[in-house]
C-alpha cells in the first residue's frame, strides 16, 4: 500500500444488454412499457406450452387420418390427406410449420369440423366467457360478503359456519354438485332447465306463447345460466371467502385500524372502507387467477351441463386427434392466462397507488 490517497471507491456501472437499453431510453411511459415487456416475456412460455402439447400429442399412437376417414379408409386418399396436413413430415418440421402459421395469425383448419380453427374456437370461447362472467359475479359477490362477515366477527357461530361451508366448497367435486343440482332443481322441482345453453324447442312458438320479453328471454337463455353458473362459482367462491377472511384479519390487527376506531369512526366504516381497501390486493390476485382457471378449465361443468364451450371442444378434439384445434385451443388458453394475469397486475396500480411499474 502506498501512502498516496486512494480515489474514493466507485461501483462499476452495471452492464446492461443493448436491447434493454432501448427500454431504458424511456420513449414510452412506464405503464405501456411494462405491459409490452410482460407480453414479450410471455412468448417463450407460450412456445413452451405449445411445444409440450405438440410433443405429447405426436407421441400418441393414434392417427387423425384414420379417425377422419372412419370405415371408408382408403390408402391412397389417406396418403394424400397426410401430405396435405403435413403429417408425413418429421415432428420438428411439423412444429416449425405450426409456429410459422401462428406467427402469421393463422391457426389452421380443423381436420374433423372442416372449418377455420379460429372461427370454431372463437364461438366456443364466447360461450365459455359468458358462463365464466356469470360464475365470477356470483363467486366474487358471495365470497367477499362471506369473507368480510367472518373477519368482522371472528370466532362466532357465523364465522365457523361460513368457513365450514367454504372448506366444503373447495372439497365438493364440481361435477357431482352439478349433477345433484340437476337432479333436484331441474328434474325433481322442474324450476330450471337440465342442460344446454339455450331453449331446445322452437324459439318462435316460445315467443308467441310468452307474455313479456323478459319471460321469453328468461326461458330461452337466462334460466340456462343459473345451474352451471352456480356450479362453476362454487370453488372460486370458497377460495375468495377463505382468502378475504385471512387477509382482512391480518389488516384488522394493524395499528391504523385502531387509530381509525379511536378517532370515533364506526366499526362498519372501518371494516368496509379502511380495512377492505388494504385487504383487497391479495384478493384481486386470486380473483384474476380463478377467472383464468375458469376460462380454461371448465371441462367438467361444461360436460355435465352440455355447455358448448371451449373445454368440451378441447376434450372432443383431443379424443379425435384434431391437432389444429388442440394446438389452437392451447394457444388461446395460455394467451388468456397471460393476459388475465397482466390485467391483474395493472389493476393493482389503480387500487394501491404505492405500486410502481419498473
Amino acid at each position: 500500500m502506498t501512502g498516496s490517497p486512494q480515489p474514493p471507491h466507485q461501483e462499476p456501472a452495471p452492464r446492461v444488454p443493448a436491447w434493454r437499453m432501448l427500454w431504458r431510453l424511456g420513449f414510452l411511459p412506464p405503464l405501456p412499457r411494462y405491459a409490452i415487456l410482460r407480453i414479450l416475456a410471455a412468448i417463450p412460455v407460450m412456445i413452451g406450452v405449445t411445444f409440450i402439447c405438440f410433443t405429447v400429442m405426436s407421441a400418441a399412437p393414434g392417427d387423425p387420418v384414420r379417425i377422419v376417414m372412419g370405415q371408408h379408409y382408403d390408402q391412397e386418399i389417406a396418403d394424400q390427406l397426410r401430405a396435405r396436413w403435413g403429417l408425413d413430415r418429421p415432428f420438428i418440421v411439423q412444429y416449425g410449420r405450426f409456429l410459422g402459421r401462428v406467427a402469421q395469425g393463422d391457426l389452421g383448419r380443423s381436420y374433423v369440423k372442416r372449418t377455420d380453427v379460429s372461427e370454431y374456437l372463437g364461438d366456443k370461447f364466447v360461450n365459455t366467457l359468458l358462463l365464466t362472467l356469470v360464475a365470477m359475479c356470483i363467486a366474487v359477490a358471495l365470497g367477499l360478503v362471506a369473507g368480510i362477515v367472518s373477519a368482522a366477527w371472528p370466532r362466532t357461530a357465523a364465522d365457523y359456519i361460513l368457513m365450514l361451508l367454504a372448506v366444503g366448497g373447495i372439497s365438493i367435486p364440481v361435477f357431482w354438485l352439478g349433477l345433484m343440482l340437476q337432479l333436484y332443481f331441474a328434474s325433481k322441482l322442474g324450476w330450471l332447465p337440465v342442460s344446454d345453453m339455450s331453449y331446445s324447442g322452437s324459439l318462435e312458438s316460445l315467443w308467441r306463447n310468452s307474455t313479456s320479453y323478459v319471460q321469453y328471454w328468461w326461458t330461452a337463455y337466462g334460466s340456462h345460466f343459473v345451474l352451471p353458473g352456480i356450479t362453476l362459482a362454487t370453488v372460486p367462491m370458497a377460495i375468495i371467502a377463505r382468502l378475504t377472511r385471512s387477509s382482512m384479519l391480518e389488516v384488522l390487527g394493524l395499528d391504523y385500524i385502531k387509530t381509525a376506531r379511536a378517532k370515533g369512526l364506526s366499526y362498519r366504516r372501518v371494516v368496509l372502507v379502511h380495512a377492505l381497501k388494504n385487504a383487497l390486493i391479495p384478493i384481486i390476485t386470486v380473483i384474476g387467477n380463478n377467472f383464468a382457471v375458469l376460462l380454461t378449465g371448465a371441462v367438467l361443468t361444461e360436460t355435465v351441463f352440455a355447455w358448448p364451450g371451449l373445454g368440451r371442444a378441447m376434450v372432443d378434439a383431443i379424443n379425435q386427434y384434431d391437432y389444429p384445434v388442440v394446438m389452437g385451443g392451447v394457444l388461446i388458453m395460455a394467451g388468456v392466462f397471460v393476459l388475465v394475469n397482466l390485467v391483474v397486475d395493472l389493476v393493482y396500480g389503480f387500487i394501491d397507488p404505492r405500486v410502481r411499474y419498473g
Partner: protein
Amino acid sequence: MAEFWKAVLGNRAALLGIILVAAALLVALACQWLSPFDPNAQYRAYTGQPPGTLIDEDDAIVGEFRLGTDANGRDVLSRVLYGARISLLVGVVATALNLLIGILIGTLAGYFGGWLDAVLMRVTDTFFAFPGMLLAIILLATLNQPEVRSALVSVSGKLDPGIWGLFIALGLTGWTGIARVIRGQVLTLKEEEFVEAARAIGCGHTRIIAVHLVPNCFAPIIVLGTMQIAYNILSEAGLSFLGLGIQPPAASWGGMLSEGRPYLTSMPWWGVFPGLALALTVLGFNLFGDGLRDILDPRLKVRS
C-alpha cells in the same frame, strides 16, 4: 410430537379432518373384508334396487344391498368401498411424484440460482400456464391407448391398467406450486449460518441440500402435500368421470358417477353415494391440511 397431537386435538376442524382421513385410509386398506359383496359380481335378479333391498333366497333373508344396486345388479356399497382404494392410491402416488419433482426443481433453482434458476423457473411458468386439467387430459389420451393399456396389464395386478396413466398425468401436472414455495424457502434458508457452517466443514452441495435444506422445508412440504392429495383425488375422479382415467367395470368413484349419470332420476343412489364418499374424503384432507398449516406454519397462506 406430543405437543403436535395436543394442538391437533385442540383444533376441532383438524380433528374432524383426521377422523375422515383415517376412515378413508381404513376403508382403502380393508375394503376386501369390509365390503359385503364382490364389487364386480352382477346379481341379475336385483338390478337397480333401492338402498336396503333384502336378498331373498328360498324365503330366507341371506343379505342386504344397503346402498342399493346399479343397473347391472352390482352392490353400490361394495363398489363405493373399493373406490376408496383407487382414489387414495392415485392421490398418494401422484402427490409423491408432485413432491419429488417440486422439491427437486425448487431446491435446485433456489440453491444454485443464476441461469439454472432462470431456466427452471421458466419451465415452471410454462407448466403453470398450462390450462387446468388440460395437460393431464392430453397425457391420459396418449397413455390410455389400447396398445399401452394391454402392455400394462401384467404389471397392474388386480388394478385397472389406467391407473398408471393417472399416476403419470397427475404426477407431472401438479408440482408447480410446490416448486415455487420450496424455492422461496431455500432462497432464505441458504443464507442462514448453519448452511455456511456446513459448507465450512466441507459438506458438498448434495449433502447440504439433502441433509440441511430439504428437512428444513418440512412444514410447507407436509402442508402442501396434504392439500395436493385432496386436489389429486378430485382430479382423478374428474378424469375418470370424463372416461379418461379408470375404465369401467373397475370400481372408481368418478367412473361410478359417469356410469350412473344417465340413471340419475331413476336410480339416484348410484350417483349420490360415490359422490358423497368423494366429497367427504376430500373434505377430510382439506380440513387436515388447514389444521396442519395453522399448527406447523401459520405464515403459509391459503393456496390460490
